[in-house]
């Protein structure tokens, strides 16, 4: 087993990995950019180093250099940043440092999204109709012709894509040019590669992920599926396991397809195969995510398998001891991503300092977060602040517990999308488990909340007191620059 592992990430996932390493008795090494030195993943680690390069967590060369210098046996990339960079993985392999993830040739094989789709298709697996060509910004005429051939609605995706970045749904030819331009620009910024491809949109659809574990000796198991259909701009907001309202045939079909695809791509370690499910219940292979995912806690809760620990052990060359017949999916789990953003103000990021940050507790409630009271939530990273995951014996107990946990979670100092879930969880489609990716666009957002009148009255009193207290506390002062004249600012 490894003695020392460097964690090349920050935020929620870095905290998760540092904790796993410490649970396993492995020395953990954290990295930080200058503005991030008070961050929780740094505080919890055994050792820490500052990244001096302007590329920060993206600078593979500096990170590898630190790993070498401090004598780390392995690097855990988390998700995002360097998790799926074949060139970085190759550099690790050449340096003799284990990359906790798939080998570089597996990632290189997957990094061509079109190639992966066509390989799966040749093997007889259903995939969504797509363009067989990648398009650069200068190929717009070709892209337009291909779009006409595929038909609308369609999805623009980045060839180097992932995490929903540079992905756009286009419903008619009219919006194509603008969407393509934006997607090229975003792909260039996020992935350093502006090539795009097109896929026929399946609407409405559900997102079904299958969690896999595989060792380097060809042993492979699945840990059931998750439903990640509640998304905004292709980022999963809420995930649940198992997926609601699947028939036994549908479930065994999608799990079987996942194992076939994993074998086809020589998948190893911890990862997820993503499928789209259409109205008729047909599954289409979409992507392989050869890394730990944001949604992994729901699978951990229903299977009692520590996925990060397994991932580290598999990377160290351990044989998979878990057999398929040992995998039991028990009860129900759901997880919400709590982002520092304002859903009632066009989802603008809401960075700031967490003033009060009290986590929900009680049995079967889990919060993964890097936050604490007084913690700074910076602007420059992904807005994910916390993940609230709960378990229940069945879906209805799980849903009630999630409602309660969200009510218990007190966050002040910045705005989060937490109240958004409080509305969505009461939507009849969600309660029935009959929702698709369309739910996020539903009318719940503009519909007034159904609050009892006495509740509104009590809250109105609270607001009046807050207002009066604030104004009582304000002492009239004259700004220095106005002391010399008759200025009056009507606005401040």
């Amino acid at each position, binding site marked *: 087993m490894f003695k020392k592992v460097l964690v090349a990430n920050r935020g929620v996932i870095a905290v998760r990995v540092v904790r796993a390493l410490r649970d396993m008795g492995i020395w953990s090494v954290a990295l930080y950019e200058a503005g991030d030195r008070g961050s929780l993943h740094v505080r919890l680690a055994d050792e820490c180093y500052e990244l001096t390069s302007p590329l920060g967590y993206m600078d593979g060369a500096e990170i590898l250099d630190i790993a070498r210098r401090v004598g780390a046996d392995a690097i855990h990339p988390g998700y995002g940043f360097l998790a799926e960079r074949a060139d970085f993985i190759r550099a690790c392999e050449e340096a003799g440092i284990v990359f906790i993830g798939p080998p570089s040739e597996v990632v290189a094989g997957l990094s061509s999204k079109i190639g992966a789709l066509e390989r799966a298709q040749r093997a007889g697996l259903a995939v969504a109709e797509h363009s067989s060509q990648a398009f650069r910004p200068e190929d717009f005429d070709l892209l337009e012709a291909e779009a006409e051939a595929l038909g609308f609605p369609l999805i623009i995706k980045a060839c180097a894509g992932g995490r929903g970045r540079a992905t756009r749904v286009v419903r008619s030819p009219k919006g194509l040019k603008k969407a393509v331009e934006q997607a090229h620009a975003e792909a260039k910024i996020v992935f350093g590669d502006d090539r795009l491809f097109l896929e026929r949109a399946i609407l409405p659809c559900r997102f079904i992920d299958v969690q896999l574990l595989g060792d380097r000796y060809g042993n492979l198991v699945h840990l059931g599926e998750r439903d990640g259909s509640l998304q905004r701009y292709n980022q999963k907001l809420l995930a649940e396991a198992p997926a609601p309202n699947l028939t036994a045939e549908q479930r065994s079909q999608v799990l079987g397809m996942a194992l076939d695809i994993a074998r086809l791509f020589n998948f190893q370690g911890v990862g997820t195969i993503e499928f789209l499910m259409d109205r008729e219940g047909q599954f289409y292979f979409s992507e392989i995510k050869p890394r730990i995912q944001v949604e992994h806690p729901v699978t951990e809760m229903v299977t009692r398998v520590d996925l990060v620990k397994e991932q580290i052990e598999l990377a160290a060359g351990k044989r998979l001891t878990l057999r398929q017949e040992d995998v039991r999916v028990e009860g129900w789990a759901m997880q919400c991503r709590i982002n520092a953003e304002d859903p009632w103000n066009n989802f603008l990021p809401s960075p700031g300092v967490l003033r009060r940050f009290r986590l929900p507790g009680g049995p079967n409630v889990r919060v993964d977060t890097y936050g604490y009271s007084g913690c700074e939530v910076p602007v420059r990273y992904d807005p994910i602040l916390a993940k609230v995951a709960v378990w229940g014996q069945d879906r209805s107990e799980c849903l009630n517990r999630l409602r309660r946990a969200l009510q218990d979670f007190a966050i002040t100092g910045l705005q989060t999308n937490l109240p958004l879930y409080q509305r969505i969880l009461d939507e009849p489609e969600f309660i029935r488990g009959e929702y698709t990716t369309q739910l996020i666009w539903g009318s719940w957002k503009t519909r007034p909340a159904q609050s009892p009148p006495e509740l509104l009255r009590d809250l109105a009193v609270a607001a009046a*007191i807050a207002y009066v207290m604030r104004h009582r506390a304000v002492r009239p002062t004259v700004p220095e620059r106005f002391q010399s004249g008759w200025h009056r600012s009507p606005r401040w």
Partner: protein
Amino acid sequence: MSRVKVTIDGQPFEIELTLLPGQNGRLKAVVNGELVEVIVPEVQGREPIEWIMVGNRPYELSFDANLRWLRAYDGLHALEIQDLEAVVTRPVSKDGRVKAPIPGLITRVMVSEGQEVVAGQPLLVLEAMKMENEILAPRSGVVQSLNATPGRGVNLGEVLVEIV
């Protein structure tokens, strides 16, 4: 004695109350003519209260910095507060200045000075937290001043556009 009109989720309430030090957090408020007993924490300074008891019902609360919404256990509620004692009331919603809600980089500007805009129309795009954020017009009107060019970095609270 303070008199305040609070409109919460579109429902108006007129509230009279007196806040004095030494009340031990206990006070009486008159809401639309009805007397209610209230207990609040004895808070110093400008920090908004975090809990309240109205009659026998406890609530945990959080307010945004401008008292435009509050969050209670059942979710967010929109607020509009009018001071009935103040000589001039200037509801927040009339403010046509668009300030940078986050520090970031302006990547696109979709309007120009003198242009007529409608509420909700995208004005510019601000990149922050790795996301492109469309900044929308808070109200309809004419762009009186524009303090935004693509490529410029902006600080929190900087006025970018003014709509009159």
